[in-house]
């Protein structure tokens, strides 16, 4: 186990900077292109890159979700008009988000937090933005846990504020926010006493490196952008 730590990631894994660039370029395509060929190819490219990075499960889930959506979309025409309208309302955001969401999926499922922060540091993102970002990621699940503990406590105390939503809001916020202020203070001391803020940058055990796969991915994407631009009306 320890032997694997610090080893460079597999050569089929993209540098996080590349993944961010691909996400941006896909945005350019979606913004400027009116057609489905380049977008379809873009989706295929993202799926392929996620697969070669060894993450087939999220791609399978993603594909299954959209297979269901497309199937419903294909057969719904036979349904009465209000049902169709409801369906359109529900499904529209999913279809609109598809081409870029799959690049977000590539980024999220094939990047660890330390890889991402090492990459952002290389992109000159300052500590003033990096530290809050890391704390943000660390605290979202912790807050969900706290929230559960508080609602349980509210139930046990009979302090549900039933009939008075503003009171209920107070019963949730007061312990939640005061608890977070306390944890924040403790985490600050723990971080300072482990050297956070001593230097402007940190070292990472694996520094991100651009490799062949990054070049291949970027060239493929660039070709798509050019194709999309030249065929745009």
């Amino acid at each position, binding site marked *: 186990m320890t032997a694997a730590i610090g080893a460079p990631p597999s050569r089929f894994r993209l540098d996080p900077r590349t993944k961010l660039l691909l996400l941006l370029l896909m945005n350019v395509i979606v913004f400027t292109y009116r057609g489905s060929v380049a977008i379809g190819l873009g989706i295929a490219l993202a799926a392929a890159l996620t697969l070669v990075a060894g993450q087939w499960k999220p791609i399978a889930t993603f594909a299954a979700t959209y297979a269901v959506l497309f199937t419903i979309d294909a057969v719904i025409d036979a349904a009465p008009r209000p049902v169709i309208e409801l369906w359109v309302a529900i499904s*529209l*955001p999913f279809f609109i988000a598809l081409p870029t969401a799959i690049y*977000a999926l590539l980024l999220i499922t094939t990047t660890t937090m330390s890889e991402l922060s090492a990459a952002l540091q290389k992109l000159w993102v300052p500590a003033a*933005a990096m530290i809050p970002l890391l*704390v943000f990621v660390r605290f*979202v699940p912790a807050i969900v846990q706290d929230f559960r503990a508080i609602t349980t406590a509210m139930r046990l105390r009979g302090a549900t504020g039933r009939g008075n939503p503003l009171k209920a*809001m107070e019963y949730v916020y007061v312990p939640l926010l005061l608890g*977070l202020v306390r944890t*924040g203070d403790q985490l600050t001391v723990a971080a300072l006493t482990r050297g956070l803020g001593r230097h402007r940058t940190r070292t990472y055990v694996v520094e991100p490196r651009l490799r062949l796969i990054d070049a291949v991915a970027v060239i493929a994407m660039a070709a798509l952008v050019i194709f999309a631009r030249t065929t745009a009306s």
Partner: protein
Amino acid sequence: MSFRLSTRDLITIGIFTAVYLGAYVILSSVLFTPWLFILLLPVGALLMAPVYLLFIARTQKPFAITIMGLIAALVAGLIVYGNVLIALVNLGVAVLADAIAFAGKYRSLTLNVVSYLVMSFWVLGQVGPMWVARDWWRDLTITSGYSAEFADGSLDLATPLSLGLIALATVIAGLVSAYVARSMLDRHFRRAGVA
């Protein structure tokens, strides 16, 4: 007023962004359909003033709100929505909110509340692309397989008037929330010595 954000400030920013943004993420998953989704503006504004005003009270420095907006833009605009334009709306709203609170040195309750009301529109890009980028929205709905009739229908509803109504609802909800938040600040956070 010091301009330098300390490690404690940066950690505070991260934690409060997690509460603020986390609540919006949960709300959007509940409201995630186009016409209900617009309610994210007033509902979010109704809920978040205690978090936002305590956040300002805990940092009281320039750029704290901007960094919150930057993370929101990165996470909700770029990663979740995968959209640069929406991310820019997120960030721009936060910069404006930061500037307003800065004008009162982060100590003026009135300006902090105005800053909160402005910040409540940070999700405008996510919930209302039909207002923010009409042509893009039209093309996109059509490319996504919907009829031009549907696209135009949605744009017909997206008038300045309807935006105004939503904005009005958001401001009223935000004021109610700020009223509650002020009472919470006085009765709890100040007495507890954290604000």
